[in-house]
Structure formats: structure tokens, C-alpha cells
């Protein structure tokens, strides 16, 4: 079993990804595979809002599960992907592209070092599949 794990992103134990360059956040290919068909995405923060690392920024719902999406680092929300509400299936088809959920202005870049890189995350996914 292998999942897409783009090398330029950072990852959390809760299966979120963050792009260190522009602060976009979403959930990973592994996450969407676990959820299966996504039926709904609710972004629960708004532009201008300050979030702490670990605050809930979105909820993703599939037929059999619902998962909260947490901010991988602290920062200010500068954009939210409002189109996801109408096209939730994009989370399954393009988790790292069109299914970005929020964009953060990262408060403290040092927090990024606490996250996993692509290699570590890929390994973490393997471990869980047993």
C-alpha cells in the first residue's frame, strides 16, 4: 500500500500537511483513503482569525467517519477554501492541490521543525497499516 507523500510538505501525526512556503494546510492522501468518500467539508475558522497549534480549523465528514482537522502550527488565517463545501469529493481526488483548506500566516517558523518530513511521515503511515 503506498500513498502520495509530496516531499516539499511537512506532516502531523493527525494526518494534516502544511506547505512551509505559503502556509496552506490540508489533509493527506492517507487520511482521505481512511475516510473514503468525503461528503462534506466545513471550514470552522474565518479570515483574520488567530489559531494556536492544535486548534480545530475544519471538519471533514465521510459516510462512515468524521474527522477534525487541526492547525499544524500557530498563526493567522489569511484564506479559506470556500469552494470545498460544494465539491467535497476533491478531498479524495486532489488532497494536496485543490483540497487545501486554510492558508496560515505562520507565527513561529520554529514550530515547523516539530513536524515530520515526508520520509518520516511515509514511515509513520506504513507502521499504522499493521
Amino acid at each position: 500500500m503506498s500513498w502520495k507523500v509530496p516531499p516539499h510538505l511537512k506532516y502531523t501525526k493527525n494526518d494534516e500537511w502544511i506547505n512551509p512556503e505559503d502556509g496552506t494546510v490540508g489533509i493527506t492522501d492517507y487520511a482521505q483513503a481512511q475516510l473514503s468518500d468525503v461528503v462534506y467539508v466545513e471550514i470552522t475558522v474565518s479570515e483574520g482569525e488567530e489559531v494556536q497549534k492544535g486548534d480545530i480549523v475544519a471538519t471533514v465528514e465521510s459516510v462512515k467517519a468524521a474527522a477534525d482537522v487541526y492547525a499544524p502550527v500557530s498563526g493567522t488565517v489569511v484564506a479559506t477554501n470556500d469552494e470545498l463545501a460544494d465539491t467535497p469529493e476533491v478531498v479524495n481526488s486532489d488532497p494536496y492541490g485543490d483540497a487545501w483548506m486554510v492558508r496560515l500566516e505562520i507565527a513561529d517558523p520554529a514550530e515547523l521543525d516539530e513536524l515530520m518530513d515526508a520520509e518520516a511521515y511515509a514511515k509513520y503511515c506504513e507502521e499504522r497499516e499493521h
Partner: protein
Amino acid sequence: MSEIKIREPLLVELSSPGRRAVRFPAADVPLADLPAGLVRDDLPLPEVSEVDVVRHYTRLSQFNHGVDINFYPLGSCTMKYNPKINEDMARLPGFTQVHPLQPEETVQGALALMYYLQEYLKEITGMAGVSLQPAAGAHGELTGVLIMRAYHRSRGDTKRNKILVPDSAHGTNPASSAMSGMRVVEIPSDARGNIDLEKLKAECDDTLVGLMITNPNTLGLFEEHIEEVVQAVHDAGGLVYGDGANLNALLGIARFGDMGFDVVHLNLHKTFSTPHGGGGPGSGPVAVAEHLVDFLPSPIVAVVDEDEEDGLPTFGLVTPKRSIGRVKAFYGHFGVMVRALTYILILGADGLRQVAEDAVLNANYLRVLLQDTYHIPYNRLCKHEFVAEGRWEDAPGVRALDISKRLMDFGFHPPTNYFPLIVPEALMIEPTETESKDTLDAFAAAMKQIAREAHENPEVLHEAPHTTPFGRVDEVKAARELVLTWFDWAKK
């Protein structure tokens, strides 16, 4: 795009302007003016004839599976036979035509019924007090958690806000706790399927409200360290809450009160044969130990006067001294209580014990019949249910879901799927005591054939069911394109 076939229309599709089923007498009083500005001008209800209503719902009923049709081994639901005498008793006009707010002296029969049911449930559970008010199991749980919290607060113990729940617990356990503002901590199960005693002890501190535990647990196993579990919680000043959903395994065999439990809820619609109704109404009475009796929801039924010339006690509604208050309107699901009391009267203590014995016998028999064909993770003496895995390494792609759908072609309702969460592709099988050996043999034969098909011809499973009136439904479409009323439909 192909036409969507309509097997049975909706009421609105059977409607034709001017059709009426029920008529009422003309007003025998002078007509008053209608209130200005408050009368609706449009009432978009269907107009259908009586014959159409009867045929429509009769045809719909024929799309359902019920206990009255065939085996229904849903683990944790206790789908036992619903005795018909219960239905007749619940419909006696002396019960159905009684208003809950009538003067107490005019409802002594109803109050007596509730009183006896309270007393018998106390006997059956070994507890000191019972409230019949909660409407369902989950409602009973919420009530129980509120009682535990009230107890601690009454002793000035306001630090306590943590509830422990095993990872095998039914979802209502953590949900009920969270709803009461408690912090929920899940305790994992050990290798034998018991709650992990060491991990439990580690959480037993002075913030502990209590532990919610089901015994036997959702794996169908009697907790091997139940005495130590109860001790650990009590030593930390916490209370033990018993989820009584699985009482069918222990009727007349062991009592929660004797095992040291402080609060339990019962499911009359599981253990006590009242029907499931397609999703209710149930009834979830709560039973408590002596030190919690004062906190029961209000009102309960008590004897308010013994001193009658005819020697009969007078019953009345009373408020327990430190009651948590009401958890719903009126007194609980009285109609369900009538059924449960009828059942207890017919069975008696010996009959109730027979229930547990045959329930456990049937479950173990089925377990042994299937153990070589299905992997049963905790394969030892079980109680009234057991959990098997619905998958095989050498039959990739076949899952519990496929097995369940194929069972329908054999006329059986599938077992509970995907619960408890700690067993992958779980099939939780609870036969109950009202099934015969013949039925169990037929079910085992079907399960074995399905296992063969899984290896030899998995397509049959993936496309099952084949012989039911409806096939698998598109759940993703239902969730993505929300059509929740026929008004949405008309808009599409």
C-alpha cells in the same frame, strides 16, 4: 441516464385533491371567530383515501425484515421474540386511555404497575432504587452520569470531572459523558479482551467521577477481573456505572448490585422483550445502590399510605430527596413498562434464569460451529454474544459488509457490523434464547457457504444481496445530495 424505478410511491405521489380518509362530526357548538392574522392559508399535506393508506403501509411493511420473519442476530441489540400477549396488554383501554395528570386516586392501577416493575427490577439487578423515567438506553446513561456527578458534588467533591470508558464501549457511553460536561478517557482492552486493569488503575485518581463498563463486554466476554476493577474505582472514590445492554447473559445468574456496581441502566427493549419498533420506543430504567437512591430522577412511584381498610397500599408519585430533577416529561414510557411487566410475570425468576442459560448456550454453540471457518479473536467461553472477523487473508477484498449483505439472500438479518471498534471487520453475533438449534444450524450452514463463496466466487458477495426487494444503496449520493423531504425531491 436511465430512469429511476419507483418500487413504492410516497404518500404525496398517491395524493389526489379532494380525497379523504377520516371524517369528523360537524361542530355541535356555535362557531367562534378565527384569530385574525394567525390562520394559515396553506396546509401542504397529501390527500389520500383510506384504502390507499392501508395498502401503502402494508406494502412498505413487506420490505422490512423483522424478528417475526426470521433470525436477527444483531449483537448488543438482543433481538429476541416479542411476545404477543405484551402487545395486547399494552393496548388495554385501562392503560391507553389514562391521562398522566389525572388525580392519583384515579390511576392506582397504573401506579401499582410502575411500583411493581420498579421493585422487580431492583430484585433482578440487586440494587436499592429504580427510576423508570429514562426513555431509552442512552437516556438512562445520561441520567446515570448526572446522578454520579450530583453525588460527588453533594459531598463537596467538585474536582471530579473524568469518566473512564473502555475502548470497546458503545458510542453512547462517551457521548453521554461528554454531554454532561465530563472529560472522557478511553481505557484500552488487554490481550484477552478485558479492560486493561493496570491502565485503569493509572487513571484512578481524585478527579475520577467513575467508570462506565459493560459486563459482559461488547466482545461478549465476562470481565475476568471485575472484582478488582470495581475495587480500584471505589478505592479512588469513584463510582461504577454498569451499561446493562448485555443483561440477557446474566439474568438470574449474577446481579450488578452484588458485584458492587453503583448505577446501572437497563434496556427494556433488549433484555425484557419489548419490541424495537424500527428504532424505538425503548425504555432505559436506571437502578442505583443505596447511597444514590436520593438522587434518582423525579418522580418515582412509592407507597404513600399503607393504612387502608381493604389492606391495599395507596401508591403515589414522590420526589427523591436530592433528585437530579426530571429527565423528560411525565413518568417514562408507560406503554413499554406494561409489556416488560407482563414478560416478568410470565417468566418468573426461573424463567428469567432460563433466558440467560439458553442465550449463553446458543451463543457458545454458534461460536463453536463457526470457529474453524471464521477467525474469532478472543475465542473462549463467551456469554450471550461473540465477535468474529469478517475477512480472510486468502480472500482479499471480502469484508464484513459483503458477508452481511450475502446473508440477506439466505433470509437472515446480518449481525452487527463494525462494532466493537477493536476488532477489524467485526461481526457481532447474538442469537438470543428464543432461537432453536435448527435455526442456529441453518445460520451456521449459510455462514459456511458464504465463506466458501468468499474464496471461490467473491463476486457473488460483492454484488449481494440478490434476492431482497432492494439492493445496496448509494450512501455517498445520499450524503452529498441531501434529499431529506419530498419538497427537496420536487425541487430536483
